[in-house]
């Protein structure tokens, strides 16, 4: 395990209604994020009560989570970006410290297209 390099990053878990997925990911794209993962059909309880995750015929109304790993300096701009949105909508952003081994995957530096 000696040859593994651990690099610190921040993980953001952004939970929004499916209807806002385009908005939320577009903002990440514009922040220069190189990739993210989306988990669909979340269930859970929040200020608006319980959200069902298995609606077959209305994807706009279910919750999704976008998971993204970013360098620390991007955290504040992204949060500043989302601020007006969460002032009006349900949803949350969790921020945590993580380690990754292949930093190149998350910073875009030297990454190949495709």
């Amino acid at each position, binding site marked *: 395990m000696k040859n593994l390099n651990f690099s610190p990053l921040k993980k953001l878990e952004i939970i929004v209604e499916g209807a806002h997925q*385009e908005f939320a990911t577009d903002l990440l794209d*514009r922040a*220069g994020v190189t990739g993210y993962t989306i988990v669909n059909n979340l269930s859970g309880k929040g200020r*608006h009560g319980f959200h069902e995750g298995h*609606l077959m015929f*209305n994807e706009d109304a279910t919750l999704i989570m976008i998971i993204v790993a970013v360098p620390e300096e991007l955290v504040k*701009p992204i949060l500043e970006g989302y601020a*007006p949105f969460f002032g009006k909508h349900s949803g949350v952003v969790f921020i945590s410290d993580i380690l990754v081994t292949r930093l190149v995957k998350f910073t875009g530096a030297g990454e190949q297209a495709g």
Partner: protein
Amino acid sequence: MSLRLGRRLNIRTLVYVAGEAIPFFWPMRTFIHHNPLYGLEHLKFEQAVAEGEKLFHGRGYLDRAQYQRFLEKGSIEVDALVAQVSRFLAAQPAVEGLDLHALLMALLTRSDNAQEAPPLLADAADVHAVLNGAALPERRVDDAALAAIVTAEARPDRPLYASIDALFGTGIGKTLDELVIKSCLDFFDEGQSVWRMPGRSQGLFRAWSAVARRNLRLFIRGLHIKRILAVDETPEGVISYVMTELGVPEDAWMDYFTAELTRLHGWAGFIRWRTGAKRHYWSQRYPADLVDYLAIRLVLGLALLREHAQRRKTPADVEALAAFIDGQPGEAYLRRELHGGHVLPALAHAVEDALDSRSAARIAKCLPRYLAHERDEEARRIAARLRRLAAVAGQGEALRRLPSSAIARLLDTLARFEDEEGVIWLKAQEAHYMKRLLRGIDLAVMPPREKRPFAQAMFCIDVRSERIRRHLEKVGDYQTFGIAGFFGIPVGFIGLEKGSETHLCPVVVAPKNLVVELDIARSADQEAFFSVLEHVFHELKASVLSPYITVEAIGLLFGLDMFGKSLAPLAYNRWRSRLHPDKPDSRLLLDKLSREQAESIIRSLQRAMIVKAVVREQGIQREAITDEIIRDLRETALGNREGQTELARRFGLDATAEARLIGRLRKVYRIDAGYAQIQLERLGRIGFTLDEQVNYVSVALRSIGLTEGFSRFVLVTGHGSQSENNPYESALDCGACGGNHGLVNARVLAQIANKPTVRARLREQGIDIDDNTWFVPALHNTTTDELKLHDLDLLPPSHLVYLDRLGNGLQAASRLCAAERLPMLEPTACKHVPADAFRCAQRNASDWSQVRPEWGLSRNAAFVIGRRDLTERLDLDGRSFLQSYDYRLDPKGRLLENILAGPLVVGQWINMEHYFSTVDNERYGSGSKVYHNVAGRFGVMTGNLSDLRTGLPAQTVLKDGRPYHEPMRLLTVIEAPFEHARQAIERVVKVKTLVRNEWVRMVLADPETGTFHLYEDGGWRALAAGVLGNDIKELAA
């Protein structure tokens, strides 16, 4: 200058949230019914209506005179009005000496007073004086009061130029809107205009700025555009700059943006839709979003403001405007009167002269005279209204005796009442309809049928299905079911002669599976295929290319001509493709491809591309290209082999030329391993797995309660309309299929449900479909009421002998339905003889000059979720959505949740679209079709230059200028035990919000207790079925 990243993102989000109040505008080829106040559904209905008035300047209710006409017709309950007036008065102070209840009832039912804006200068003492024939008391209107009147309208969230226009008559807003519309028409054009705006692929803002910097017209006008654009390259930077220059406080930015965006809400809604429509060809090619659009508006607005400030010394920022109002309140007030259209006609000249002179002395002289007149005028107007009202109510004498303090209370009460009046009428109208419907509903459980019906038929929940179902049930042994017209299967469809994918499902769903239509008769036309591909390569970007390639690949493999004559962009030449009845026989590809099949398709495609490349790039004849040459080139391009290729050897290509060709094969012709992987993924979307097929059929059948006793025929009936020369045709099609015909989904369901493998798996789930049951797709043409069966060539021979009986039954139902419907469409022209009516309807469908081929969903009022037994004996007059549902088959309420989240939400959109298009056809609807011009091939404008018209045209909801549609909120009835239904609603947040905010009127009909539960004023209230007959007050209070 460039903004910080965080700041830039922040501004983007501000604009995004600011734009949310604006409803999407879908291109008209797939008209999507929606709630124009969708962005305000988080508010209570009444609050949203008030907010809509502010944002869109649209009325939320009909006017009093129209409600009075409904009252006369008997579609509003007087008792319900009485109850609501009492309820209103319970919270108001009494006015001694007056019977307020009688007065308000007179106001509602007998007064012809129109509602008016509240007085600004006159007060109760003035009105009292007029009523008593006395002179107005001495009173001076001070400067602060005048400034307050003006300031109240120059709010910080109102576009500054609008405030300037209102005071100086500058018309900046109008000029700005025209400039913006012209820019939008240039940029968003989808092939209608001859002139093409340059640089569109860079995006709206950049393309516009490049043109604007050079635009002579703007330059001559002395505009400052160039200087503003030089400040920052990004739209966010420009927005930030302009807002700072205007001096709008930051906490007002979002509201300011909203006000700016709602000025042309059709265009803004179109851009909103387009931004999210990632698959939309034009949106991929020429990107644009609201940030771009807002930046353009702000730049032009600031430039125009500065131009006027220079020429006419008008204020150019918020601070200067405030200084003007506070410094010269008298002048500001007179300006508001003159330019806001409030000025007293008798004094208009005097005011205009004084203002034109710009002489403080003349203005000061004019002001007191004007104020005195205006105050007098207001007091007299109000006094006259009160007198008329009191006279109608028989309280004229009592009014004269009222002291000034009581007049003040009376005026306040009247003003509050008029604020609430719309919703009072609405509830009384809803109560009437609710009473009629609930009274007819039969909660008794029917005994099971002794033998299976001759045929069963599924129809869309659409209100138009109700009529035909009723008639079909009457002409023979037919059992019908209601199900959302996409039959629960979200389909991405690529049809014959189409190069693009159509989503056949509610717009809140993105289909994951692709269904491809295959022509079973025609063979491949290689030449046509290649010329199409050539076109693709030269005209389209690679990202757009891929979906077409895969379609072509399929076509190639199966030896079919998939493209016919049209390719995606060309398809836009038509409003939308329709399913032609005389199309060749076709099959739908519903099963997943195997890995081998998919790879083989890609190989075929690659081979075809290589041949094309060699012919084009090297000028070598097709006949000379051997399989070996192709294989070599392919393997080399994919990186599987190295060294000289057979092509180079045979035709003497040197290494450079060979390398160049290989490079082009990879880049241009996409013979590339990575790209092949993407193609493979795309091919993976084609078809459904067996699990998916079984699940879709199972859910569809269980949710309508059809799990046993299957008939010989089960018709799966989609619907579509048929009309000529009608940009709104799509609005008459199936909303559950995204504004398309529903036949494809019907064919998909039928084809799957007829598969033995699917039936075997369904049997394991307890759904035993009889071996001699056959699912037959059909189309209900809602314009002619024709019912046409499809895919009859697949029908088992055993069924042929029954086909005649079935055909006769369907035809009888069609004719009866047309006969019922036609008199409402053409009261004079058509006879009531069913066969004549049917012919008449068919003529309508092909008449180019017909502005109203059918009434469509007009007059929709209810949504019933439950067994057909509930309503089978009722004539619902084509006004009710009917969704079959049997709670006994849905112990966990999951099926109900899906019905609520999908079909009900679509129904509510349709209902609200009709509601608002009726109550204010000019603002929320699109006005008369007669003045419509098609804009950019995606929308309509009134005249040559206007906002994109949203909503429904007058011909759809009005008749002779008056409402044909009765605007009411969707009365939704769910047949299920109270707790079962209530919990399902609670679990679907969207629907919970609609119920709690009363966007729908929800009634739960509990068959186990025989009780109706109505949601109203924040809670559920039980109504014993027996009370409905005599106690309607209960429902409206």
